[in-house]
């Protein structure tokens, strides 16, 4: 993490998101916001009223306004497109995957697409299957996109700011369960570089990579296991594309064990990709099978008694790690 001079305050993940927007919009007049219901931001005082001219509160037309953002990025603006809820990314898949991700390549480098798509994952809230997806693995399979999964208020601010300044399309997958959690964020300029993981807790016995909202349960599991004498290193990849392979592989080389907690569905999850990389590149160091703690391959159900047990939990992680010993 890039540390700055400003003093540290505790602010919410949500507030951090909008500090990033406000600062970047004030810093660079080419930054515009596009999304549904976003005129509320200035009306509620979340963003300065003076920014209204660059806020386009769009009709419910995800494919249209995501593509409009791509066209604007092609021609000199730096749009931030708010998809509201990550499951809506499918409506815009053509413009994100066929256009945003590919235009630079297909034009032989003539085009530059500096665009940010924000997608908030509303699982863990009885929102049922149309509002609860964690679709980042699908987009990891679309070359040309960069993908970040911030897990802390400092990182969501720092990664959004870096994403806005990056010249490539970046998709920011926010975990809605984190929106109202607070954490330390430096005052003023604060950037988190893309492609750099953070070690949240050092350890020697097991490497535990946890993605986005799974960080919370991963850290709880590490604390619980510490009392049993098991030292768990918790890594937050922060970016899935590009992925900080050296950070993950370096840790696995020391610990010899790898567990990955990923709220995405199991098949072809981010956890699957990280497991495959470790199996290919750190096989000689492994003392135990690689374990994935993911959400099983079912759509997300409505009832809390059905939904809640599906996600990675502290108990599932503790169990998996205990079996590796």
């Amino acid at each position, binding site marked *: 993490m890039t540390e700055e001079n400003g003093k540290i305050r505790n602010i919410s993940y949500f507030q951090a998101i909008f500090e990033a927007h406000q600062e970047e919009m004030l810093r660079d007049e*080419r930054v*515009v916001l596009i999304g549904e219901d976003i005129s509320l931001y200035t009306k509620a005082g979340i963003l300065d009223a003076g920014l209204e*001219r*660059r806020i*386009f509160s*769009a*009709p419910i*037309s995800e*494919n*249209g*306004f*995501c*593509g*409009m*953002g*791509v*066209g*604007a*990025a*092609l*021609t*000199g*603006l730096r*749009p931030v497109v708010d998809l509201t809820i990550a499951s809506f990314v499918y409506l815009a898949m*053509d*413009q994100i995957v*066929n*256009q945003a991700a590919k*235009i*630079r*390549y*297909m*034009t*032989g*480098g*003539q*085009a*530059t*697409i500096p665009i940010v798509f924000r997608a908030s994952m509303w699982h863990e809230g009885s929102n049922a299957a149309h509002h609860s997806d964690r679709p980042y693995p699908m987009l990891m399979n679309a*070359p*040309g996109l*960069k993908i970040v999964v911030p897990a802390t208020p400092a990182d969501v601010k720092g990664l959004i700011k870096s994403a806005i300044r*990056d*010249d*490539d399309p970046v998709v920011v997958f926010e975990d809605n369960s984190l929106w109202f959690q607070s954490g330390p964020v430096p005052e003023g300029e604060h950037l988190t*570089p*893309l*492609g*750099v*993981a953070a070690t949240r807790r050092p350890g020697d016995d097991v490497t535990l990579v946890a993605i986005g909202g799974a960080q919370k349960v991963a850290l709880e599991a590490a604390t619980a296991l510490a009392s049993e004498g098991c030292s768990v290193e918790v890594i937050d990849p922060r*970016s899935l594309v*590009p*992925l*900080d*392979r*050296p*950070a993950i592989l370096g840790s696995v080389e020391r610990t010899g064990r790898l567990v990955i907690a990923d709220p995405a569905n199991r098949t072809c999850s981010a956890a699957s990709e990280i497991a495959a990389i470790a199996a290919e590149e750190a096989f000689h160091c492994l003392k135990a099978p690689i374990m994935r703690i993911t959400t099983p391959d079912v759509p997300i159900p409505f009832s809390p008694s059905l939904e809640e047990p599906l996600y990675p939990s502290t108990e599932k992680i503790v169990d998996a790690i205990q079996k590796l010993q």
Partner: protein
Amino acid sequence: MPPNDSERIALLRSQLAIRVFEEAVKKQLAAGLIPGSVHLSIGHEGAIAGGCAALADDDYVIGSHRSHGHPIAKGADFGPLMAELMGRVDGVCKGKGGSMHLTDHSVGVIGESGIVGGGLPLATGAALSAKVLGDGRVCLCFFGDGASNQGRFHESLNLAAIWRLPVVYLCENNLYGATTPARNVIAVEDIADRAASYAIPGVVVDGQDAEAVYVVVAEAVERARRGDGPSLIEAKTYRYGEHAEGLIIPVTYREEAEVEQWKLRDPVALLRARLIGDGVLGEAAAEALRAELEQQVAEAVAFAKSSPLPAPEAAFDDVYSNPITGGAR
């Protein structure tokens, strides 16, 4: 405003440039020098040349899979276009785009979408940039009859209408989406009628008459530039060849007589005859114009043939403009 004499000659030149280039493409395809499939604009020259002639040099164009004519009419060099079709390193897209994607940013042609209708939102976004940046630019978006059935047609026109964006949507309606007759799959007779849904002008124009296209597009461009928002223009036109050149269609989906009927109103021949008849251009000058373009295209073919194929490792270039190595600290 109808075009003046020099603008009329420029219109003929632009149409002829497309025609001569496309004829050469056919030859090079037959000679085995162009890989993949090729979508020719022969028959569409009036709509394309007429539309692009109404633009300023720094205005934007976004087009479709039938992409060759758009950069030519916007003034692109033939060489890099032909080299692209041959998949060569000096291709305008370095051999990454090909026939459906002849994008040339140097002349403002910023996208050619192989996904039908994919360019409509992009054009809307280019117009959003022009509005926010206040640079006075306009975007001309070419698309086909098939694209008008895509959801993004509706989404894009609505977005442009609510924010009065400076964009002109120009439909090259060639009456067939691949083999499907447009009349079977479009609920209205004229696609231009759909403009009513967005409270914007909708105009039908004879796509074989480049001058008529020029006049209506120029009016729409002027309207867009003064901040009055988008227009929808439908140019009725026809493609003489198959959907893709060399594509074998085992059934008859359009009668040969229909094709021949349309060729009687060939957009290039029509304007040529009109200019000679009006005394704007002599026979000899018209022939010289064609000969000059044939010479330029022959040089483009030679340039393309002499350009090497890209090295296999170039497949990894230009995925990102800022490729970050994971773990860079």
